[in-house]
């Protein structure tokens, strides 16, 4: 059977990006050494590329082009003046719960929040906890805070000044407990290297010892494989 040798039946879903992590890895490894499957994938990729054309046409507001022009101009200015002082994190596109967590902490105790640059760890209202992560040589300008609710049910990660990645890669967050890593979500950053994301964990965030961020293939990996850009203890008991 061809499928015993190749991964032909997995290719349509691979082109759509809907395989699970293990299957994605299996297909990617096979493709690296199989011309037959690469040619098959090209045809399915062509189909996937066309699917976006199926949507009904809609137009953004005329104002959007003006906003684009302003942002492009702003980007030019930033290239000549990259240094930025501390800013209150933008909430978009963090989800409502995640946004509320940040807002509560940032608004209620901005001064203490700013001190996180130096303190690494602090507790806030309602038992909320915020941890400053350390960057690595792979992202020397990167900074990040992990914020965890008092009951450990909710948490967010806010990163800034991480390098933008090409479309084939994403950052992936890992929670570490007893030497084992659990994926807590993937993300990419905007032109400022900024992003906020909710931490997705199967167990209470209070049960993990530390958090890592690595560079992984788009869609994420089942275990860390790429270079580490951020890390830090969650200061859990």
């Amino acid at each position, binding site marked *: 059977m061809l499928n015993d040798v190749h991964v*032909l039946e997995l290719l349509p879903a691979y082109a759509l990006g*809907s395989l699970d992590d293990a299957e994605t890895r299996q297909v990617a490894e096979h493709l690296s050494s199989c011309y037959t499957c690469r040619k098959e994938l090209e045809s399915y990729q062509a189909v996937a590329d066309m699917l976006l054309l199926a949507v009904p046409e809609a*137009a953004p507001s005329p104002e959007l082009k003006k906003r684009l022009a302003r942002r492009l101009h702003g980007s030019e200015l930033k290239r000549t003046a990259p240094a930025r002082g501390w800013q209150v994190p933008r909430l978009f596109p963090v989800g409502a719960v*995640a946004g509320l967590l940040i807002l509560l902490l940032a608004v209620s105790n901005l001064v203490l929040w700013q001190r996180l640059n130096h303190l690494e760890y602090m507790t806030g209202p309602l038992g909320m906890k915020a941890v400053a992560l350390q960057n690595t040589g792979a992202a020397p300008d990167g900074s990040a805070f992990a914020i965890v609710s008092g009951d450990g049910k909710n948490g967010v990660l806010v990163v800034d000044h991480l390098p933008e990645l090409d479309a084939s890669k994403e950052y992936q967050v890992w929670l570490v407990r007893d030497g084992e890593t659990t994926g807590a979500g993937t993300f990419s950053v905007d032109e400022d290297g900024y992003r906020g994301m909710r931490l997705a964990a199967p167990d209470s965030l209070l049960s993990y010892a530390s958090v890592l961020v690595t560079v992984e293939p788009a869609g994420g990996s089942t275990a860390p494989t790429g270079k580490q850009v951020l890390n830090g203890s969650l200061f859990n008991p």
Partner: protein
Amino acid sequence: MDFEKADDVYLIKQIAAGQTAAVEALYDRYNRLVFSAVLVIVGDRAVAEEVTLDVFVHVWRGAKTYDDTRAGVRTWLAAIARHHAIDILRWQGSRVDSRSVPLDDFSLAGDPNLPDPEAQAELSIQRRRVQQALAQLPEEQRLALFLAYFKGFSHQQISEQLRQPLGTVKTRIRLAMQKLRQILVDEQQPSNTSERSGVTYPTNRKD
């Protein structure tokens, strides 16, 4: 400099060289394509506009990484748009909800009230082809495809969402993609089918 008549690849090269006017020209050409795709994925106009901005700023920042031997500019843009939009869904922990564009829209023709200038003619023809191809799929296959591609769901998530066995979901997606390939790729480019691997494989496998 007037970029209105410039081809896509030239525009990208000019963007890479720092010409903001080239980004605006690219925006004029493709803002509807990007916005429409993002809107279907995120289901909210305000969010879709933010993502559309992000996409064109990403192009401005990343034009140097564009490789015209790997994908056309439109394909590249569409991939960036989908990637950004699905990122938003995942960050928000989003699920299909009342804000989402109804599935029916996935196969309906575009808004006839929108202008269709000559420059958009080829795009319109391709859009119609894809819509007609999708209309040939059974609804359950279209739905599975929609969740996979436009919502970024894994097979397992689709299985849970639709309350269907995992194997059934896998089969639906595979059959849908095979059918679309037959219509959109094989029938349009018959000479390419032999150039492809030419392999056939069973479609009735029980997962």
